[in-house]
C-alpha cells in the first residue's frame, strides 16, 4: 500500500438524497452498498467486514442491510455518533484495513429521517437545554447573532451561502434542493430561529452512501484514491462561557487531521464541510484554515469558495442542497471527494484536484461545543 494512504478507496456510491423514500431502511442501504461494490468491482463474498454508521437507524441497522445481500456472517459493526456517525464508521473501516484485520471493508452511512416525522431533529429529552425548548437551528442562530455582533458580516452574507449551495447543487443528481435562489428569496423565506430562515437550514432527508475500502490499489487503470488521515474527536465539556463564534472542536479535529496527513490548508483544492446552517459554513472556513478568525464571511462575499474560486467548498451543494440524512452525510462527503479526485464530478467537477478535506460535526448536547467531529483527508496517488 502507498505509504501515504492508510486505506485505498476502491469505489463509492450513494442514493439520491430525497425528502422521503419509498424504500425500506434495508432497501435504501442495499442500493448504496451494491452500487459501491459494483463501482469497486468487488464481490459480496470478498467483503471481510461491514461498518454501518447511522444516527437514527436503531439497533442492528447494518445486519438489516446485510442480511439478504449475502454479506452477513463476518463482523458487522454499527456506529452511532450523531451527525458524525458516517465518518466515525469510515474511521473504524480504515483502522480495520490498517491493522491488517480486513483486506476489504464496506462502510455505509445511512438514515431514513422521514420515519421520524417533520420538523427539527429530535434531541435527548433529559438534556437541560432540550427541556427548555432548544433545537439545533436555535444553537446556530445564537452563534450567528453573536458572529454578526462581533464582525462586519451581515444577514446577506448568511443568505449568500445558500445561494452558492443551490448553484452547486443544481449540477448534482444527488441533491435534494436543486432550484437556484437569490439572497432576497433566502432572507424572505420563513423564519426558523432569528436570524436563520428556512432556506439557511439544511433539509433533512432519506439517503445512503457507501464506500469500499481496501488495503490494495485498484488492479486496473482507474485512478488510485485513498484516505491519508481521519481524525475523530469528541467535544470538550464546560459549564462556563464558550466563544460560540468559533468551533473549538472543529478547529482541533481539523488541525489533527492536517498534521497526520502532513498537509496544510494551502494543499487543499476542495472542502466538503458541514454546512447544516449557513453560519456554520462561514465559521468552518476559519476552522479549515481558509480565513483568519472572524474573517470567514469575506470568502462568501468575494465568491472565493465557488467551484471556480480559490478553494471550492461543497462543490456538490453540501448539506444545504444535498440534504442531511444524519448518518449518511460523512460517507456522502467522501463519495463527493472520490468523484472529485477521480474526475467523475460531472457538472460539479473542480479542475486540478489533488487533495480534498471532508469535515463533519454535530450532536446537540448541553455543555459541549458539539458531541463529535470527524475530518478526513482524501488524496490521489
Amino acid at each position, binding site marked *: 500500500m502507498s505509504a501515504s494512504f492508510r486505506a485505498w478507496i476502491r469505489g463509492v456510491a450513494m442514493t439520491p438524497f430525497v425528502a422521503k423514500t419509498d424504500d425500506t431502511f434495508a432497501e435504501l442501504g442495499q442500493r448504496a452498498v451494491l452500487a459501491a461494490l459494483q463501482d469497486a468491482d468487488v464481490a459480496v463474498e470478498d467483503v471481510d467486514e461491514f461498518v454501518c454508521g447511522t444516527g437514527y437507524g436503531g439497533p442492528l441497522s447494518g445486519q438489516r442491510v446485510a442480511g439478504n445481500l449475502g454479506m452477513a456472517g463476518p463482523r458487522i459493526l454499527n456506529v452511532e455518533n450523531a451527525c458524525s456517525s458516517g465518518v466515525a464508521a469510515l474511521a473504524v473501516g480504515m483502522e480495520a484495513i490498517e491493522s491488517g484485520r480486513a483486506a476489504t471493508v464496506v462502510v455505509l452511512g445511512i438514515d431514513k429521517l422521514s420515519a421520524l416525522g417533520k*420538523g*427539527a431533529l429530535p434531541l435527548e*429529552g*433529559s438534556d*437541560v*437545554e432540550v*427541556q*427548555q*425548548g*432548544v*433545537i439545533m*437551528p*436555535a444553537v446556530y*442562530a*445564537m*452563534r450567528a*447573532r*453573536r458572529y454578526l*455582533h462581533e464582525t462586519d458580516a451581515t444577514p446577506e452574507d448568511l443568505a449568500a451561502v445558500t445561494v452558492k449551495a443551490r448553484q452547486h447543487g443544481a449540477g448534482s443528481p444527488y441533491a435534494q434542493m436543486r432550484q437556484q435562489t437569490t439572497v432576497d428569496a433566502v432572507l424572505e423565506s*420563513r*423564519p*426558523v*430561529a*432569528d*436570524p*436563520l430562515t428556512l432556506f439557511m437550514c439544511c433539509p433533512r432527508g432519506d439517503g445512503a452512501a457507501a464506500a469500499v475500502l481496501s488495503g490494495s490499489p485498484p488492479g486496473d487503470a482507474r485512478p488510485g484514491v485513498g484516505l491519508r488521515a481521519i481524525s475523530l474527536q469528541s467535544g470538550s465539556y464546560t*459549564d*462556563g*462561557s*464558550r466563544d*460560540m463564534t468559533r468551533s473549538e472542536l472543529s478547529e482541533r479535529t481539523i488541525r489533527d487531521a492536517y498534521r497526520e496527513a502532513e498537509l496544510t490548508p494551502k494543499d487543499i483544492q476542495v472542502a466538503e464541510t458541514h454546512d447544516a446552517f449557513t453560519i456554520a459554513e462561514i465559521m468552518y472556513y476559519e476552522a479549515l484554515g481558509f480565513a483568519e478568525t472572524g474573517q470567514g464571511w469575506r470568502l462568501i462575499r468575494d465568491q472565493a469558495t465557488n467551484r471556480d474560486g480559490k478553494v471550492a467548498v461543497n462543490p456538490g451543494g453540501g448539506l444545504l442542497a444535498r440534504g442531511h440524512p444524519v448518518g449518511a452525510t460523512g460517507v456522502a462527503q467522501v463519495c463527493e471527494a472520490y468523484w472529485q479526485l477521480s474526475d467523475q464530478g460531472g457538472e460539479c467537477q473542480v479542475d486540478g484536484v489533488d487533495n480534498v478535506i471532508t469535515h463533519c460535526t454535530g450532536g446537540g448536547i*448541553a455543555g459541549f461545543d458539539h458531541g463529535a467531529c470527524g475530518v478526513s483527508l482524501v488524496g490521489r496517488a
Partner: protein
Amino acid sequence: MTEVSLPATGVLYSSTIIHVPHPEFGDQYQVGYVDHQEGPRLFGHVAAGELLAPDTPVHVDLRIEDDPERGRQIRTTFTPVEHQEVSS
C-alpha cells in the same frame, strides 16, 4: 463538581427567537445564554417581546420543578434589567 452561589444578574451572550411551535412554549419563544462573572453560563428563556441585543444585562430567575412524568425540570428565565426596574 463544586457548588457556587450565583448573583441574580448576568449578561446575555446571545439569543434567538424560535419560530418552530413547541408543545409547552407555544408558537414562538426567545431563548438565550447568559454569562455570570463567577463563570457558569446558563441557558434559558428570555422574557422580552423583542429580540434582545447581545451583552444586555439581565435578571436571572431559576426554578426547579419535579414533574411526576418527566422527572426534574429546570426553568430559567432572563428578564432585561431595565425592563424589570420599570415594571416593578
